[in-house]
């Protein structure tokens, strides 16, 4: 019987694992260590400017554990969505980290890099051929939108990982990839049940989040020819049919039909069984091969510059009607800005009362009077200096705006000097589409780097 054991030490590279949970995972003799390195979850900034969300030292520490563990067991590593957003620089950034570790440890390794960043011109050709399709009801795409993206990535499926591993890669570093593909590739190579490989990967893509106590990290997936099993590697955590099946709810808008490059996973008839020692077995997953191979596109581009100001308010009269007072302040500020000649097509601002209704925006319970609120001014403008100047115009109002007519001038509570905080360039998501293609490798570029450390193979 074909069996493949996949160790997933982290929900995302950079989030860490306890030494005990890592050693427990390695003691189960995995065939591969696989981990997802990124996501769009933290917003458009990371894809927009191509920067990584996690601290470099955290990434290096987690990667070192994987490289050293893999070296000792002579097994490969797959890392997807390098550098959070999976742009080409993210892949090279992870290569640099791997290179440092290999040199420090004295290992040699063959690294295969998979680039998934897309040029606007290629995407325009795809658009003209009708090969870019929206994933939702509220998104559109045209050439102007493509031009406005600073980075576009396509999420790779299992194909480049399978090719790289078959070519003898010790470390596969991929740009944007579906979290699932990173984990499903090795079980597919080893002849396991493909539906189980995909479904298991979907369960384990966030690492220990499918277990009872995710804090210390580590999940282990064993795929065979009829199903898969999941277990937590931290001794204080366990898996139950509930935690495993409920994880499919997390961050998925449809928990039963999950679209991946080339396949749709159907988990609706899956059967979850509790085994001994906190393991869960899952059978009866299915997949349907897609008629057309698609990859998901993500794109983000600049949306201006922001400067913010935070001010604290406890005044008892204002607390009775913060929204009314803020509306008076907003209208007064707008007329002052207009009077000063600022072009209102070049900037906008919002005033949000934290501690009142800032997070949702709707009504508050009847009679609610807060103890204090924090008013957040956010100014967005087409230039940074303009955003700061607008915030500066509003500074004296945020400090002293009248509570009521004919009352003495109040002063409110700034926590900072200067009160204005330059937030820098901001970005927006622009694409939520799939791109169709005949060949899974059409939009990918793969390169191999041999790193010659002093010792044996990683």
């Amino acid at each position: 019987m074909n069996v493949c054991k996949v160790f997933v030490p982290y929900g995302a590279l950079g989030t860490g694992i306890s030494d005990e949970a890592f050693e427990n995972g390695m003691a189960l003799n995995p065939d591969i260590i696989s981990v997802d390195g990124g996501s769009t979850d933290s917003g458009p900034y990371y894809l927009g400017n191509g920067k990584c969300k996690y601290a470099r030292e955290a990434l290096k520490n987690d990667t070192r554990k994987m490289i050293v563990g893999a070296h000792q067991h002579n097994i490969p590593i797959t890392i997807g969505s390098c550098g959070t957003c999976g742009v080409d620089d993210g892949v090279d950034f992870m290569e640099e980290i791997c290179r440092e570790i290999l040199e420090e440890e004295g290992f040699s390794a063959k690294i295969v890099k998979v680039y998934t960043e897309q040029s606007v011109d290629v995407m325009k050709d795809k658009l003209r051929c009708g090969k870019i399709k929206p994933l939702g009801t509220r998104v559109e795409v045209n050439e102007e939108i493509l031009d406005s993206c600073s980075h576009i990535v396509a999420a790779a499926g299992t194909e480049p990982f399978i090719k790289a591993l078959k070519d003898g890669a010790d470390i596969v570093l991929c740009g944007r990839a579906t979290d699932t593909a990173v984990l499903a590739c090795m079980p597919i190579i080893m002849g396991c049940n493909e539906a189980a490989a995909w479904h298991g990967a979907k369960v384990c893509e966030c690492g220990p989040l499918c277990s009872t106590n995710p804090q210390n990290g580590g999940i282990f997936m064993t795929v065979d020819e009829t199903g898969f099993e999941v277990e937590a590697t931290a001794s204080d955590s366990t898996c139950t049919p509930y935690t495993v099946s409920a994880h499919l709810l997390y961050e998925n808008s449809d928990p039963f039909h999950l679209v991946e490059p080339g396949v749709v996973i159907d988990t609706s008839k899956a059967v979850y069984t509790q085994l001994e020692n906190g393991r869960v077995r899952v059978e009866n997953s299915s997949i349907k091969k897609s008629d057309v191979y698609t990859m998901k596109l993500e794109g983000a581009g600049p949306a201006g510059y922001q400067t913010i100001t935070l001010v604290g308010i406890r005044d008892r009269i204002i607390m009775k009607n913060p929204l009314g007072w803020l509306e008076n302040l907003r209208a007064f500020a707008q007329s002052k800005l207009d009077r000063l000649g600022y072009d209102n097509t070049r900037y906008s601002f919002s005033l949000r009362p934290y501690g009142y209704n800032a997070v949702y925006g709707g009504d508050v319970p009847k009679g609610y009077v807060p103890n204090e609120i924090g008013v957040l001014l956010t100014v967005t403008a087409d230039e940074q200096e303009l955003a700061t100047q607008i915030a500066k115009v509003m500074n004296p109002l945020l400090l002293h705006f009248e509570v009521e007519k004919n009352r003495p001038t109040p002063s409110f509570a700034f926590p900072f000097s200067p009160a204005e905080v330059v937030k820098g360039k901001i970005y927006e998501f622009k694409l939520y589409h799939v791109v169709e293609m005949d060949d899974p490798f059409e939009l990918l570029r793969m390169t191999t780097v041999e790193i010659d450390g002093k010792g044996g193979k990683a």
Partner: protein
Amino acid sequence: MATIGETAYYVRSKNAGPFMVTVDIFCGEKAIFEKLSASKSITAEKVAEVYHVRPEEVKLFHIPDLNVIKISYPRELPQGQKYERDMHAGQQYVQITKLEV
């Protein structure tokens, strides 16, 4: 009259990609799942009203194996737009807990 928050075991919300939000209502017990499912307190129309979307954009899943009712809906504006209120949509479930059963 009890609210969903008082009736269900646990309710959470999270972004599902940059353009969708998903809310999971964990009922805990079968009886509560059946009560909430039968009560018509959670319909596409009610969800649409709470989140300012169109009823046909709301997806509802009743999952008896987990005693979970799941709601997915599109964001009014994409995640991280310049005046975002909740980047990970992690606090948007609270409005659903206020609906009456």
